[in-house]
């Protein structure tokens, strides 16, 4: 996993955990690419990524000082009310992205924060250790407990999760009230194209880029949400 830092004071000072930015550059692919904000201080933001396809490969090929057009902060982030006592952050693969900000906010809200990292195998695990406690889980048991990240997670008052949609569906089974950040393809990131449709249990579709990307787990019709987005494949 690689981290790209950008100078962007307006975004850095207003972004909330779980919100994203939509990045565009030239020459690049036609559409922008959405990335969760990974860290921010007053002046800079960071995103975390892997070279998955053309877009991410080009981003990682850039040199220090090159310009990227950055639209944001976009979407609705995690809701972390003051006074909570325990929070569990569950991340699979690149789902670590929104978690450092979530950990910061949850601790500020007074919670004891446990971060549970999951991946297929040890080398894909993220070594991030924000929060009070860190738990590891790998499908093949090469690091931490063997099995899913959902099984490895302890109980908590607030559960925040991000990762492949398949993993989030498992989170929804165990914690219907969990807040999950979903992945969809996005056309605009600003609410005008309706490309980022998230199927809802009550029928109809929401826009991941406006009403989401963070949802109450129980609100999503998981069977109708694509789990095979090429970039959701953990690598």
């Amino acid at each position, binding site marked *: 996993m690689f981290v790209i830092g950008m100078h962007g004071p307006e975004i850095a000072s207003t972004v909330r955990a779980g919100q994203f930015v939509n990045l*565009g550059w030239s020459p690049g*692919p*036609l*559409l*922008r690419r959405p990335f969760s904000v990974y860290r921010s201080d007053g002046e800079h933001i960071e995103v975390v990524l892997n070279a998955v396809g053309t877009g991410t490969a080009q981003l990682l090929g850039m040199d220090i000082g090159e310009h990227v*057009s950055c*639209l944001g902060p976009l979407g609705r982030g995690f809701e972390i009310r003051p006074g909570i006592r325990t929070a569990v952050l569950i991340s699979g693969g690149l789902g670590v992205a929104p978690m450092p900000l979530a950990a910061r906010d949850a601790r500020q809200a007074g919670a004891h924060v446990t971060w549970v990292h999951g991946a297929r195998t040890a080398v894909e695990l993220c070594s991030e250790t924000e929060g009070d406690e860190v738990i590891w889980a790998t499908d093949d048991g090469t690091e931490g407990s063997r099995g899913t990240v959902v099984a490895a997670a302890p109980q908590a008052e607030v559960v925040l999760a991000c990762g492949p949609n398949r993993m989030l569906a498992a989170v929804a089974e165990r914690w219907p009230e969990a807040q999950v950040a979903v992945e*969809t*393809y*996005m*056309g*605009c*990131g*600003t*609410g*005008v*194209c*309706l*490309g*980022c*449709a*998230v*199927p809802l249990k009550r*029928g*109809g*579709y929401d826009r991941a880029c*406006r009403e989401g990307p963070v949802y109450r787990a129980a609100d999503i019709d998981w069977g*109708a*949400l*694509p789990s*095979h*987005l*090429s970039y959701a*494949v953990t690598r």
Partner: protein
Amino acid sequence: MTPDLSVAVGALKLRGPVLAASGTFGYGTEVPLLERRSLGAMVSKGIFLRPREGTAPPRIAETPGGMLNAIGLQGPGADALVRDYAPQWADWDFPVLVNINGESASEYGELAARLDGVPGIAGFEINISCPNVEQGGLYFGNDPRAAAAVTEAVRRRTKLPVWVKLTPMVSDIGVIARAVETAGADALCAINTFVGMSIDLNSYLPRLSFRTGGLSGPAIRPLAVHLAHQAARAVRIPVIGIGGIARAEDALEFLVAGCSAVQVGTATFVNPNAIAEVHDGISAFLESRGLTSLADLPRYLPRD
């Protein structure tokens, strides 16, 4: 002196030739940061009489220089449009046209009647790239008679400007253009998206849940310029060019090729300021050529 960019599309006077294309600007209320100062007009997201859920995701796929979409005309229906959006539009300093859709000619007519006279609605753009349910699902836009029937059905129910948005996948766009001109259209919009497909090699299935989608973006621009030009050669009413416009030079290709105005679609996704930049770029171009108004731009429009 800044050149005069105002244009008249039929009876409708616009302050500039760059319009927002249907389905790419929502209802105009979504994004406060979208620059509106130079917007000639907005065409709202396509609507049916009744609310529609739209298609299941994935709805979009990226392709070289373009994107496929199958949104399925998700929308709140006419009543909610009148209640939630039209009142806001009534206060704006540019006209809003509603992109109307139906499953039969009479449904188009009914929708126009429901919206006619509602403050905030300045006209209609008929989307004839819809399947004609009564005729086995063939597109209205592929058949000159069906296209004319829809146009007439709308024309009879409103005095507002009626624009007809043409389908590109036809063997002779001039035939359709003339048919809807005769049926009473005030202007033509050329063109809507091309039907395309993309395959996901992991699932061995189409990337889009709807299987096919409409291709938009720079990839289609040379096709769109040709079709808009062919339409403009075929009729006397104004033609509004659409397809792959991202920069002023792209818009100018359509304008030189005989269009009165243009619409910008996909480019707004990439650059929320695209419309303003296209507008300003046209102005700068005219100035650089010593032209004081858009009307003076040389056109290439040989009549057959």
